[in-house]
Each structure stands twice: as C-alpha cells, then as structure tokens.
C-alpha cells in the first residue's frame, strides 16, 4: 500500500469511525432521555393523569407481572413489545405520582421447565390417573404446573400461526397478574389487546388498594316471574330468577350488588353508587317516589323498561308490562310509545327447532325481527357508555320518543345512544306472533329509525309536588293528607339516567343468545357507577373508529380508484407532460431553423 492509499484509508477510517461513535452516542442519549409524543387523539399509548391520582393511593409497592411467551402467534407478534412498552410507561407515571410499582416480565416456559426439573430431581412421580387424563387433567409435571398457573389466573392460551402452507396451533401465555400486600391476587388472564389495558389495570389496582367494592342497588319490578324449565323444556329443581345469572355471575365480580324490593324495609342503600331498575312493571307511587328521590339526589340510574316482555327460550309468548316509570320521564322529555314492539330486518337471530332427516331435530339460527339491533351509525361510538360495543340487540323493545320542549323545560339533556335501523317498523302488541311482526310494511311512511337507548343528563325535577303528601307504602291504605309526611324540599343534584327500551335485555335467555350485550351492559354499568376518574379512563378505549355502512359500488370505487385509478392518472400526467415537452421542443427547433433561413 503506497503513501496515498494509506493516507486516504487512515483519514476515512478514522472519520467514519468517529461518525459512527458520534451517532451511537447520539442514539444512546436519545434512548436515555427519550421523549414520546402520543399522536392519538385520546392518548391511548399515554397514561392519563387520572391514573396517576388512583396510583397515588397505593401505600405499598405493587407488583405487575406480565406472563408472556417468547413465541407468540402471528397476530400477536407486536403485543409483547407494545405491552412491555406500555408497562414501562405505566411505571414511569406511577413513579411520577409517587407510587411504588414494579414491573416484571416472566417467561412461563422457564418457570414450567424449572418446576419439572426440580420435581424430577426430587424423584416425585406425577399422578397417573387415567380418568384425569381423559378429562384433560394433569398427567405430567408440566401439566401440573400449568394447572397451578391457570388457577392463579395465568392460563395457557392457543393461537394460530402461519406455517409453510397452513396454520399451526401455537400455545402461548399472555396474562397480567397484580400483587399487592397479601391481598388476593388480581389477574387479567387473557391479555391480547392494548385497548382498554389502562382501565383494566387501574380498576384492578383501585380494587386492590381499597378494601371494598362499589355498591350497586338492583331492583327487579317483576320478581314473581321465574325460570322454571331448562332450555329443553324439562322442569328445573329450583326456579331461577331471570336476572340471577346477570347479577350473580357478571355483576358480583366487580361490584357489591344489593338486591332491593323498594319496600319500607328495603330501600336504596345510601352508599349505592348506582340504582339499576330491571323490568319495572306495577310500581306503587311510593316506589316511584323513592326512585325519583334516588335520581334527584344525584345517584345515577339505569332502567331496563318496555311494555312487552317476551320469551326467547321456548314457544313465543308475549306478556304486557305496565310502563310504570313513564310518568316520571314524561316530565323529563321522554315519551314511551306504548303497546307496540320494534321490528327490524336488521336484527339478532334466534335458534329455531327444525326437522332434520330421519325424524331428527336440530336448532338453526334464523333472523328474528323482534330483536332489533343497533350498530354502525345507530350506535354512538363516542359516549363512554356505548364505546367499545360493536352492536346491541334489544329484544322485544319499546321505542322512546323525545319531546325536546319538555326536556328543555325540565333542564334535561337527552342524547340518543342507540337506535334501530331506518328500516324498522312498529307492529301492534299481541300475545302471539303476528303477520304484522313478520313482514316489512309496504308503506315506506311506516318505516323509520326508532330510539332504543337514551341517556338523560341534568338536574331532574320531581313529579311529586313539594309540600304535597308523600305517597303511602301501602296504596290501599287511606291516609289523611293532612297528617301524613309531606314531600320535603330537596335540591336536585346533577345526575344521569340511562334508559334502555328492553326489559329483557339482561335476562338470562337474552344474554346467552346475544353475548355482545354483556360487554355493553357491563361497560355501561361501570361507566355509570365508577369513580368518575375511573370512568374517564374506561372511556379511553381506542376508537379505531368503524367504517360507515358502505355500498358495494362505493367499496369498488375506492378499492380500484386507489389501486388502479391513481396509478393511471399518474401515467396520464406523465404522458401529457412528456408530449407537451416534445411539442415545445419541436416548435423551438422549427422557430430557430426558420429564423436562420430568413436571416
């Protein structure tokens, strides 16, 4: 290597080396003092200040364990990193709020391997119970530890991965476990989505931090109606209430639910943060008075009410219900359209017994007009109450009409959260299924959007005049208006009332068929009952806002417009551009040549 080359090489190697060093240092500094800008409108990737407030209530160190497999199925490749990222951000904000938080990422397969090794070393023999093996029980040390983990809320999940020319089932773990002091461990067993993670974590942390659950009062207006037979028609040993599964299995997990009768001895508890009124039927004035009092005191209420209850499990049969609360909400600007049902071709389906070959019978789902669904444009995607619900189905619904004049007078703001499609009609009530319920009316004037879920907000006025006598508990009892207690003046607190136009929406038969309603109901109840801060966090579900209903030709237009149209336009622009260039260059040449000839 001669002098020139060595000089060149030294100069460049040293300067490139210096540059690389500089860039590495820059990057390291940037990583060390990283600043993140969350560009999403609601800041889904950023921990909200409300979380900080709730975290600051933690007295001791809280541990969040993220149990996640190294190998994740195809769709969840990003999840691990995104979650770890998010947990780090969560930890930062906890530290900022003065709370001690530890995040651990645990690889379950390591734990399983270790367990199996120690067991094998100690010479234990796994329980070899053939019956258990048949039932999917533990037959090896690995299964044993897997079962133990599952009991702690860390179940093994299964996902699919692309492999060669098909799919491969990939077992994986993705669970979050929260540990605080010696309290019961809180777990998120199936974590597959970053959406709502903040709420999931914070609500569990709030639960861990406080010793009691929020209280909900639950009132059923028709407790005498019970489920007596199972789905096949054979009688149950013990009759079950229609709302028992909803209350006992779904609500009790998160709330302290108190069932009340609205009698003198069973009033709305003071500490209740929400009053749920299911299927109000024949209410006494006193009961209505108590409900109003609860609402006026600022306690939110959720009412599932309609003028018809139906059966979904067996033969179709409709029961008329009294629109018991309509007197109250008429004053607040909401009218109940009585004695009709909402029918729509956009609806949920019910299972119908059909005759199969060789005399067999099978269940087949068929669309059922009387279970209208609210989805897409019929569903308010921005309200914290309905956000995240893809569609809601309202079995045997009664529509609401809004009287804005009354609402304005009462100072109540009404927003429509869910309504049926514009192809809905209102068949008359009848004890059985009628032709009117089955067929779409020919007259287009009979078709239209029907409101099925309303949110009323404001300071509600009472329908019981101040100073008048308080209705007695027993309506048959004759009271002297002069001696009895008088309606005491009460300052109306701002509150919220959620009206659902279906009495059956939370009944077992309906929930088992329309499971999407569970998500909506739980979400709405949480949003109404929770600490307002927690409710705000809950509302922060990423609105990867859905598309509106599109026509086939619209879809084709945008698909081929983007895929073929834009490229073609580009080609066209180029052709025009190059042709104009060629023309102007030719004319230039002609001009110069003719000038030359003339001179």
């Amino acid at each position: 290597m001669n002098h020139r080359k060595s000089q060149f090489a030294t100069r460049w190697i040293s300067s490139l080396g210096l540059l690389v060093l500089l860039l590495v240092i820059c990057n390291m500094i940037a990583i060390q003092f990283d600043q993140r800008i969350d560009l999403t409108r609601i800041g889904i990737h950023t921990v909200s200040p409300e979380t900080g407030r709730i975290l600051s209530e933690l007295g001791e160190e809280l541990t969040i364990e993220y149990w996640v497999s190294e190998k994740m199925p195809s769709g969840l490749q990003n999840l691990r990193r995104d979650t770890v990222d998010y947990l780090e951000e969560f930890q930062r904000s906890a530290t900022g709020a003065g709370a001690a938080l530890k995040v651990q990422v645990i690889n379950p397969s390591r734990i399983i391997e270790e367990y199996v090794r120690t067991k094998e070393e100690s010479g234990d023999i796994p329980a070899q119970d053939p019956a258990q093996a048949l039932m999917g029980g533990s037959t090896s040390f690995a299964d044993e530890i897997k079962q133990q983990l599952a009991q702690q809320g860390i179940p093994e999940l299964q996902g699919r991965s692309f492999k060669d020319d098909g799919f491969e089932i990939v077992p994986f773990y993705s669970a979050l476990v929260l540990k605080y002091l010696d309290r019961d461990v809180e777990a998120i067993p199936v974590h597959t989505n970053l959406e709502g993670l903040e709420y999931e974590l914070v609500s569990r942390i709030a639960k861990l931090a406080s010793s009691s659950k929020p209280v909900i009062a639950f009132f059923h207006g028709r407790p005498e109606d019970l489920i007596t037979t199972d789905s096949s028609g054979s009688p149950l040993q013990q009759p079950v209430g229609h709302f028992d599964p909803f209350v006992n299995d779904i609500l009790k997990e998160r709330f302290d639910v108190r069932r009340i009768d609205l009698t003198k001895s069973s009033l709305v508890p003071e500490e209740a943060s929400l009053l749920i009124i299911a299927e109000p039927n024949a209410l006494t004035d006193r009961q209505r008075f108590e409900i109003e009092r609860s609402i006026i005191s600022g306690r939110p209420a959720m009412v599932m009410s309609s003028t018809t209850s139906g059966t979904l499990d067996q033969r179709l049969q409709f029961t008329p219900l009294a629109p018991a609360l309509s007197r109250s909400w008429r004053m607040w600007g909401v009218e109940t359209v009585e004695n009709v049902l909402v029918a729509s071709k956009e609806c949920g389906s019910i299972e119908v017994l059909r005759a199969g070959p060789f005399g067999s019978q099978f269940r087949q789902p068929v669309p059922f007009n009387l279970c209208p669904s609210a989805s897409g444009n019929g569903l308010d995607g921005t309200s914290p109450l309905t956000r995240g619900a893809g569609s809601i189905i309202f079995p045997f619904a009664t529509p609401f009409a809004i009287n804005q004049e009354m609402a304005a007078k009462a100072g109540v703001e009404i927003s429509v959260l869910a309504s049926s499609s514009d192809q809905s009609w209102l068949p008359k009530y009848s004890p059985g299924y009628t032709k009117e319920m089955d067929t779409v009316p020919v007259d287009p004037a009979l078709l239209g959007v029907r409101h099925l879920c309303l949110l009323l907000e404001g300071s509600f006025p009472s329908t019981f005049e101040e100073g008048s006598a308080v209705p007695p508990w027993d309506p048959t009892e004759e009271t002297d208006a002069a001696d009895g207690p008088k309606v005491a003046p009460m300052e109306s607190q701002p509150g919220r009332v959620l009206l659902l136009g279906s009495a059956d929406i939370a009944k077992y038969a309906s929930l088992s068929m329309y499971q999407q309603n569970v998500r909506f109901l739980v979400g709405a109840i949480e949003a109404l009952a929770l600490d307002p801060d927690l409710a705000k966090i809950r509302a922060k579900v990423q609105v990867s806002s859905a598309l509106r209903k599109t026509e086939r030709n619209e879809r084709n237009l945008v698909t081929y417009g983007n895929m073929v149209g834009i490229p073609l336009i580009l080609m066209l622009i180029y052709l025009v551009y190059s042709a104009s260039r060629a023309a102007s260059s030719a004319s230039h040449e002609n001009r110069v040549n003719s000038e030359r000839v003339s001179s």
Partner: protein
Amino acid sequence: MNNILTVARRECGAYFGTPIAWIFIALQIAILSFFFFLYSPFFIIESADMRVWFGLTPFTMMVFAPAVTMRLWSEELRTGSTEVLLSLPVPVKDLVIGKWLASVVVLLASVVCSLGIPATISWMSASPVDWGPIMGGYIGTVLAGMMFLALGCWVSALSQNQVVSLLVGVTAGIVLVLALSPDFAAFLTSTSEPLARTVEALGVQSHFRSIERGVLAISDVVYFLSGSCLFLALTVFQVELKKQ
C-alpha cells in the same frame, strides 16, 4: 446549499422527466393498495385507520427505495458522466446530498399520491377519524424512507451495474428489516440478552413500530436520522474512493 439544490433539481428532472419516478410511484401505490384493500381486507376489518398500510411500509420500502436510487450513481459510473460531474466546482458531499434529496422528493411524491387512502378513510368513516396516528405514520414513512434511500445511494455508488445495485440494496434492506427484527432478537434472547437487545435496536422494525401505532419517540427519530447520516457519509466515502 445552492449546489445541493442544483444537483437535486437535475436529478428530479431525470426522475420526473423520464417514466422512472412515475412508474415506481404508480407501482408502489398499486401494490400497497392491493394489500390494503384486497389482501388484508379493509372492508372486513372495518377500522378507519391506516395501521395496516403503515405496517406494510417497511417491507415495500425495502424493495422500492433501492429501486429508486439504483440509478443515482450506478448510471453515472457506467456512462462516465461522473467525470463531468466531479470536475464541477461542487463538493462531493453536496453531490451526494443533492442526489439523495431528489430521491426523497420521489418519496414525498409517493406520499402525496397515497393521500387517496386517508381521503377514502375520512369519506367512509362513521365517526371523526383520528388523524394523529395517520400523520405519525406519514412522518415515520418519510423518516424511514430517508434512511432506506440513503442506504440505496450508498449501494448505488458501489457498482456500475444498476441490477447489482438493486439486488445489493434489497439484500441490505432485508437485513435491516427482517434479520434485525424483534422476532430474531427474541430468538437470540436465550443465547445472549445484550446481543438480542443490540440486534433489536439496530433494526428498522423496532423503531418503526411505535411510529406506526401513533407514538413518535425522539429515539426513533434520532435512529432514522443517524441511519441516513451514516449511509450518506459512506456514499461520500465511496465517491471519494473513485478518485483513488
């Protein structure tokens, strides 16, 4: 600066005065749209965002960036027009940056042409579209594109043959996107944790990912800018080497 702009203007003329840039942009839009609308069906996912689009971006970039830049130096070296170019009183770094800038203009043009997608989304969305992540995605596309184009410039200066440049460029892109990926890092974790973290930090995917989901981190911006810087410096070196 004037020199850079002069060179960039000439290269833009070469891109847009010939069908090259138009074809690349048209092809890129067509392919991405195909994947966006048909292969990963937009109308079935029904979500009014562009995560799928931006998720595909590093992979298309990996092929299209070297295809755009392959001619920048290879062509000049083949025809010998570098002789004139290098005899001009313009510093080599200005030539390199100017040419790279022209390819960035092509990238920007392709970004502009892809605005049909956000337009579609805003037309078809049921509720107001969250523009933040879409803006972020575009910022990420331009940043990552700048780095891939700088890489392409360097590779182009390595060979007189455009096809060789393209192939080497695509290979380098694959290394950056696929080999240095979080998946590979996860695979390495059992061998050596620091190695895995380094591999992940060097790759494009781990840096593009958070931008794609709508979080702009300074460290990611610094990564892409330093990548561009490094490859441009290597290009200057490569051109200076021609004088040796």
